[in-house]
């Protein structure tokens, strides 16, 4: 197909069952689309994404010789890849497809205004058709994928991912900030659901990683620069001790930067007594036969745990999520400690022992006479420190009693929160973060391990609060994603990059200053020098195109014309577009 072909546009309006059709008059939308310029076919259909729907698109492309396709359905963030593939199978360049979001942006958020929703749907379809008329085909580019994975973080997830990739026969560069591998798990004394200590679990992994000929481990190190694109990333790793910097070329990345336990200053007198510790701090106390009070070294006879500290707090940013591992971890620790301690209390809101073997810990703890007391959500226990003694008081909602307790040791099961430098990591790898502060997966349901940055995977607690066993599963899964790319050896990349029209360039250097990736340089071989884009470095943000004072930069697939024509389609009547007066 060439650009001189007259646009022949097909419009497909999806019911999405009731999801769209229940609010938007899809038939009316499809009918309206028929009257739009260059539209040669328009219809509505139950599920466009189903096999039947996809076949319909392919059939109609052939039947009507369509060269542009507009599908009005759900968010393009979900199905753009699906439909791009469909049109491509029928011989239409993927960049000649455009999707209208009638579900997330119309029917679901204007449920009670069906008429206004239908008007909005019509406008959006008009805008998309207008854009489709001026879309241009772009070449499909593939790049090779280097057979090395960068694994960031040497905790249990990072170690597992590195081992799996190494065992599968690909090279791994494992970068760990600390001087030792092993992360949190290495320090923990009471792991669940197994009976091993963290050290017993992590040691064999570390040994295997160190012995593996395909795995290069850099401890005390940090990724300080990250550049390039899927399959061909260039990273700079700095040794934090020696400040020595090294550059590596890698193909894929797994970010397994994990979490930190929340240090709950301001909660339950934390910090006011050495005898108030977090669950993580308890886990890290040196193992001994008898648990000793941190303050005076005498044996702990009474211990209390408080759950959900810094977790499940509606409206408190970064602390709204459930930290997932603490209920089972607390039950396990309490059950383990109970036999040597006179009294163990767990104060909770809900007991979330959901996993394999977790309910058994809960039962075991109860059987060993750990006392469980549920406190009201709006009246948390009050903890004070008097004469270096810890006093707690709260109401047990289940017995409707005011209770007090003086534990020798108070353990706060605190939230898993992202490491302090997660914003930096997010920025480095262009990852987005969700409300809990952890990284967003590509899709929360069906793509939990990949991200919106092609070639960068996430695993373990860097994605959300998780326990060690779940992190191990994630790690192997993320490794599969990386290996999938490397085994194939090449991958298609987006052609949506910017391009300088050298005859219009006034050599002002503005684009060079605004480009965040250093993708634009001056071609000094011509006189006067003009700007040019290194496509492999360009990630398609388009900042240069809008900054260029000479309009010399085209942002492919997002040209000025392609954007403005949508605005026109929305605001101007057909008469106006022909040069008439506004209505």
């Amino acid at each position: 197909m060439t650009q001189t072909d007259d646009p022949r546009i097909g419009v497909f309006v999806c019911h999405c069952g009731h999801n769209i059709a229940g609010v938007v008059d899809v038939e009316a939308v499809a009918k309206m689309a028929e009257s739009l310029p260059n539209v040669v076919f328009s219809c509505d259909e139950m599920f466009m994404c189903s096999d039947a729907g996809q076949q319909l698109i392919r059939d109609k492309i052939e039947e009507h010789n369509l060269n542009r396709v507009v599908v009005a359905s759900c968010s393009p963030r979900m199905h753009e890849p699906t439909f791009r593939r469909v049109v491509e199978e029928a011989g239409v360049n993927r960049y000649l497809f455009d999707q209208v979001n009638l579900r997330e942006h119309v029917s679901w958020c204007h449920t009670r205004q069906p008429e206004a929703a239908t008007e909005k749907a019509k406008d959006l379809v008009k805008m998309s058709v207008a854009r489709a008329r001026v879309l241009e085909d772009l070449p499909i580019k593939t790049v090779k994928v280097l057979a090395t994975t960068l694994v960031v973080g040497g905790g249990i997830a990072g170690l597992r991912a590195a081992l799996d990739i190494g065992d599968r026969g690909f090279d791994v560069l494992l970068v760990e900030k600390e001087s030792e591998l092993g992360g949190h798990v290495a320090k923990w004394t009471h792991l669940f659901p197994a009976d091993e200590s963290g050290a017993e679990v992590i040691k064999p992994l570390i040994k295997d990683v160190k012995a593996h000929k395909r795995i290069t481990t850099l401890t005390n190190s940090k990724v300080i620069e990250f550049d390039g694109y899927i399959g061909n990333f260039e990273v700079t790793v700095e040794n934090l001790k020696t400040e020595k910097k090294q550059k590596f070329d890698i193909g894929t990345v797994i970010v397994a930067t994990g979490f930190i336990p929340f240090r709950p200053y301001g909660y339950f007198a934390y910090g006011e007594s050495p005898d108030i510790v977090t669950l993580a701090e308890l886990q890290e106390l040196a193992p001994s036969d008898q648990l000793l009070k941190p303050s005076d070294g005498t044996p702990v006879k009474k211990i209390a745990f408080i759950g959900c500290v810094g977790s499940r707090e509606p409206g408190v940013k970064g602390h709204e999520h459930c930290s997932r591992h603490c209920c089972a971890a607390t039950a396990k620790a309490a059950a383990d400690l109970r036999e040597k301690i006179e009294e163990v209390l767990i104060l909770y809101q809900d007991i979330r022992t959901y996993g394999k073997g977790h309910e058994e810990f809960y039962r075991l703890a109860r059987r060993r006479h750990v006392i469980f007391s549920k406190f009201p959500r709006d009246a948390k226990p009050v903890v004070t420190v008097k004469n270096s003694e810890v006093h707690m008081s709260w109401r047990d909602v289940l017995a409707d009693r005011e209770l007090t307790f003086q534990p020798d040791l108070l353990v706060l099961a605190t939230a898993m929160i992202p490491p302090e430098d997660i914003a930096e990591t997010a920025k480095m790898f262009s990852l987005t973060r969700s409300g809990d502060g952890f990284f967003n997966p590509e899709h929360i349901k069906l793509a939990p391990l990949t991200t919106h940055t092609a070639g960068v995977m996430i695993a373990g607690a860097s994605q959300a609060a998780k326990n060690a066993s779940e992190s191990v599963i994630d790690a192997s899964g993320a490794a599969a994603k990386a290996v999938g790319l490397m085994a194939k050896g090449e991958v298609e990349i987006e052609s949506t990059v910017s391009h300088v029209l050298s005859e219009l360039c006034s050599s002002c250097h503005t684009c060079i200053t605004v480009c965040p990736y250093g993708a634009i340089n001056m071609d000094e071989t011509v006189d006067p020098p003009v700007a040019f884009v290194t496509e492999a470095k360009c990630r398609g943000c388009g900042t240069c195109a809008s900054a260029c004072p000479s309009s010399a930069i085209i942002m492919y697939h997002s040209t000025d014309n392609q954007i403005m024509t949508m605005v026109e389609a929305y605001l101007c009547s057909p008469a106006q577009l022909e040069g008439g007066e506004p209505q």
Partner: protein
Amino acid sequence: MDEVNTAANTNHVPSSNFAKEVEAMPGGADIAKCIQCGMCTASCMVASTTDKYRPRKLIQMILLGLREEVLSSDLPWLCMTCRMCEERCQENVNLAEIFHAVREIAAREGYIPPAFKNAIDVVLKDGWMLEDAYSDFIEDDRDDLGLDTDLSWNKKFVAKLKKKYFKGVFIK
């Protein structure tokens, strides 16, 4: 008997000792299994008729170690052993058995609700519960049916029992 709620506002220090004590009694073994879901209360015939009795809450009071309060109240005595709660409990807690064990501890320490005590006193005295109601009419009926009208053997039997087992320990 103390009213249960009088103790509600005094602060209590939780302890597992009472639960352990109950657990050591025959029938008390399952006390620690309770997760406080409330299935028992919602199934309980007695709880349906009085706001005072909540088997779930009573278990929690035992688990929190409210020993004196539980033993001195008449709550453990309100269970009528229909076992509907046991039939439904998803954690296999045998509440009727547990309350039976608690009653034994209570009785041992002299906590028996007057109604129960009076009933037992009557039985020990008369040999049966209904002597006051034994009227001429019933006597006639028994006679008509060819039954023995002299029921004093009840008394003798109880007197024997008393002598053999009770030795007058807790019967005033």
